[in-house]
């Protein structure tokens, strides 16, 4: 009786142990394969693309549909599109985030509706933003295929992520700071600018950096808005090709453009990696590494 009892518990123990090992192995395999996938992609792009890159490639004009020459104007256009996007989206996002955290009661219907619409916006595929941007900015507002249309479309696209991260950043500021400031007789606006925003600034910057990553990677929304022209833009109303659109075009439409597509991908990935490292660095500085971006109580 006693013997059989210990035998059963030993069997259970062995079974538990086996299950532990299985789960551990499975979890580790999953994690390793994610890292492996990243390394594979990066190596693949680097091996195929790095040989094509030199300083001339980064600054010179495109020749022969991209098979020769460089990507200078394309880098410039990408920068300008990003600039328009950030100039528009940052004030809007910070404003909305401040309204959501400071001025509107968190549980009110209005705040819930704003959050819900942001979640819907975040789930909209980028090609839909592209079609909207083409119909609204390019045609209805008459901006045509231009860097301005592209930047504004991207701004619409990054709004949800930027507002959500900003809201989290502001909410993470300890309430005691605000109480203390209020106890000292500071006005709400003064508290906002002197206490809340400076404390939240590193996390706000991290959100901006995340949005830049999203915007840089975008192809579908830009194809129909900022366009395809690979000339150096002279104004924001000129059409300008972004790095991602250039990669798409070289890979899909230009026979013999493969090597250059990989080289451009190298440049884009290098930019994205730098931005990701910057995010990690900022997040570490603020000590908010693992904060979720879903937040909100609705």
């Amino acid at each position, binding site marked *: 009786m006693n013997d059989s009892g210990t035998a059963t518990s030993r069997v259970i123990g062995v079974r538990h142990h086996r299950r532990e090992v299985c789960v551990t192995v499975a979890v580790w395999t999953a994690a390793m394969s994610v890292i492996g996938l990243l390394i594979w992609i990066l190596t693949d792009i680097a091996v195929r693309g790095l040989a094509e890159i030199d300083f001339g490639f980064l600054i010179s004009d495109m020749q022969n549909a991209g098979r020769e020459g460089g990507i200078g104007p394309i880098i410039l256009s990408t920068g300008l599109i990003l600039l328009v996007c950030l100039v528009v989206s940052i004030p809007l996002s910070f404003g909305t985030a401040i309204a959501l955290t400071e001025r509107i009661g968190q549980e009110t219907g209005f705040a819930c509706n704003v959050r819900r619409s942001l979640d819907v916006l975040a789930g909209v595929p980028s090609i839909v933003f592209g079609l909207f941007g083409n119909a609204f900015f390019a045609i209805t507002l008459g901006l045509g295929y231009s860097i301005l249309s592209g930047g504004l479309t991207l701004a619409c696209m990054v709004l949800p992520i930027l507002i959500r991260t900003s809201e989290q950043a502001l909410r993470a500021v300890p309430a005691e700071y605000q109480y203390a400031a209020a106890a000292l007789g500071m006005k709400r606006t003064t508290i906002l600018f002197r206490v809340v925003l400076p404390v939240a600034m590193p996390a706000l910057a991290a959100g901006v950096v995340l949005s830049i990553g999203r915007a840089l990677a975008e192809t579908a929304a830009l194809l129909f808005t900022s366009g395809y022209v690979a000339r150096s833009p002279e104004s924001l109303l000129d059409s300008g090709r972004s790095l991602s659109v250039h990669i798409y075009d070289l890979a899909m*439409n230009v*026979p013999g453009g*493969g090597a250059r597509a990989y080289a451009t991908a190298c440049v884009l990935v290098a930019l994205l990696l730098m931005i990701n490292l910057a995010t990690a660095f900022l997040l570490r500085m603020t000590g908010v590494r693992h904060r979720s971006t879903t937040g909100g109580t609705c």
Partner: protein
Amino acid sequence: MKYFLSMSFVLLCLTLAGCTSSPSTNSNSNELSGQLTLTGSSTVAPLAAEIAKRFERQHSKVRIDVQTGGSGKGIADVRRGVADIGMASRRLASDETDLTAHQIAADGVGLIVHQSNSIAELSPDQIIAIYTDKSNNWQDVGGDDKKITVVHKAEGRATLEVFLKHFGIDNPSVKSDVIVGENEHAIKTVAGTEGAIGYVSIGTAEADIESGVPIRLLPLDGVEAKTVNVASGAFPMSRPLNLVTADPSSQLAMEFIQFCQSADVHDLVKSQYFVPITKGSDIAK
């Protein structure tokens, strides 16, 4: 000093203007100015962009923006007046007769085999059988006893689309032995494998045959696979690359289309692996 510099700059400009206008027979060509927007086929866009660059170099006041989005978008944009010129890599459909197509080049795809292959011509059914792995030996289609090595293109290649569409094959049903990317790669593979068959852009294949690469272009439906036949539209597996305009189009648009159709851009057309079309006498070129 500043005055002197600006004066000399003005003089330089005048001299340059004089230089450019004097050899030109068309008196108003150096007064062209304005902006053109082209949208449409992503196959035509790289060629149109290269031609536009050359046109802009000749007419400094002209700006030509080339956008993509597909042939359908090009046609829709011309109709709505969003674009001055549309690009379409196909013939206009019967419900698009309100627009005018101006062909600037042709894209022809021909089947190639090794030079030593004794086969004279393959029927469409035989080609489909070879590409779907139903025929695996040249004996099955009237040739020597040799295994068929099927050379196929990677997903996304324009020649692949033309080939599949012409024969009505789904890409997943193709059973190939070798998958290649570029035309040159396909030609090298066929030249190095005696039992191989592949399909490439006819312009590229002709250039390589002239330079002594041991391949042969097979006729299709009795029509020889030659750039001349592609240019004339007689070769079945081809498509025209068109610029599309709505009827009252601007003088600048017409000038640009004429430039696209002129012999001045044939090198650009060939460098994009398309076949230049030639009007009238010099069609043999």
